């Protein structure tokens, strides 16, 4: 098992070095794409087991987004849902022997956090306009502008560090226990790692939802409520 803090390229495509997390991510993308195409090929009004599972995932996702943002989940569903499914599958990919989860490398977590940051800014501007979005940094007072800017950066870093720390530590612990105790001893720790992976995927997706929701402002039915002011 390699050091998760350093990446060695497996091969190069021109000047671009291709590392293990990228290859595993490609495999995850291929697997999810293949599953999506096959599972949604024959959707019916009376669903089967697979369709029921897919609809359960989508409706649960919509419910979480609606509960968190109090808005129509349709514009945010692809991003939030993809982040959740990708992080979940990436975290659980550690169950396959010899595979390190991409989320155990800081580049993948940073890429996810950067996308969330960009989506936060993009949804905020599209919803409030550039001036309106920038004005949110001066709430509740212009004195808060530096703190709000720092908050934007730090919470992005917190996303990176939280996911990276949890997944990297899990890989480390399992590697250490496996090297010291033997083949079957790390199994309980791997089961715990499954739970940790699912929880981290949920936390990452929910935090992304909260950040985007805060950027787009109050929901339409609460926007003019004088007592509820700002929630960011």
């Amino acid at each position, binding site marked *: 098992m390699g050091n998760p803090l350093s990446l060695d390229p497996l091969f190069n495509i021109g000047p671009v070095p291709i590392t293990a*997390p990228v290859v595993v991510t490609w495999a995850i993308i291929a697997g999810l*794409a293949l599953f999506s195409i096959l599972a949604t090929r024959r959707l019916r009004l009376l669903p089967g087991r697979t369709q029921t599972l897919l609809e359960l995932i989508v409706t649960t996702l919509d419910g979480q987004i609606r509960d968190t943002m109090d808005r129509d989940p349709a514009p945010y569903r692809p991003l939030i849902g993809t982040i959740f499914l990708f992080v979940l599958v990436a975290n659980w990919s550690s169950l396959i022997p010899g595979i390190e989860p991409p989320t155990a490398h800081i580049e993948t977590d940073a890429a996810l956090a950067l996308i969330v940051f960009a989506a936060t800014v993009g949804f905020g501007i599209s919803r409030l306009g550039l001036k309106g979005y920038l004005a949110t940094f001066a709430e509740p007072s212009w004195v808060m502008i530096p703190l709000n800017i720092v908050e934007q950066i730090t919470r992005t870093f917190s996303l990176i560090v939280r996911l990276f720390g949890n997944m990297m530590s899990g890989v480390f612990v399992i590697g250490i226990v496996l090297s010291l105790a033997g083949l079957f001893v790390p199994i309980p720790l791997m089961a715990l790692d499954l739970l940790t992976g699912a929880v981290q995927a949920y936390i990452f997706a929910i935090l992304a939802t909260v950040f985007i929701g805060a950027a787009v402002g109050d929901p339409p039915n609460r926007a003019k409520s004088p007592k509820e002011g700002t929630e960011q």
Partner: protein
Amino acid sequence: MTIDWWTLGLQTINVLVLVWILARFLFRPVTQMITERQAAAHAALDDARAAKAEAEAARAAAKDAAAGVANDRTALLAKARADAEQEKQRLHDEAMTELDTLRADARTEMAQAAKDRQQALSEQAGALALDIAARLIDRLPDEARIAGFIDGLADAVAKLPEATRAAIGDGAPVDLRAARALTDAEKTRLTDRLQAVLGRPVDITVTPDPSLLAGLELDAATAIVRNTLRADLDRIEAEVTRHDG
């Protein structure tokens, strides 16, 4: 710790590509199917509501129809009762009219029967009186059947109109009927009395007729002069019958 910026960039692109793939091949079709199912459910609910509304309307219409039938039935029953009452009254009136007619007919028949009975009794009384008179006449002397009636006959002829009297015995014998054959004396006396009354000589022919009981009957061309007991009894009987009727 160092960051591999190539890996960071590639992972960013990978995640964005995955966002597009899942949006295109997973979330969109599943969401579309959920929307279609919700639309189908709403359509089914709308159909059910429409069917329910139709059923409610049909039930209300049936209720109205039942109420209408009940009203018609009540009206028909009332009309039937009125018709029956009217028919009953008509039959009663007809029966009363017929009864009155029958009563009147019965009264008429009873009156007629009483009249007929009275007539029969009168006739029997007349016959009985005739029989009694005949028996009594038989007990009288034979002269009494003629002698007492000659003057009466002459007086009756004298009271006849002049033209009638002129026709009696004009060129032919006077026809007479008598209760018995006249004796010569009686015939002479009768001829004398008639000549005295008529004022000219006449011949007489007498035909015996015991049914006259007593007396004489003159048969002129235009009149009959009766002075007989039988004629008297017939007159009495007719008078009695007229009074009884």
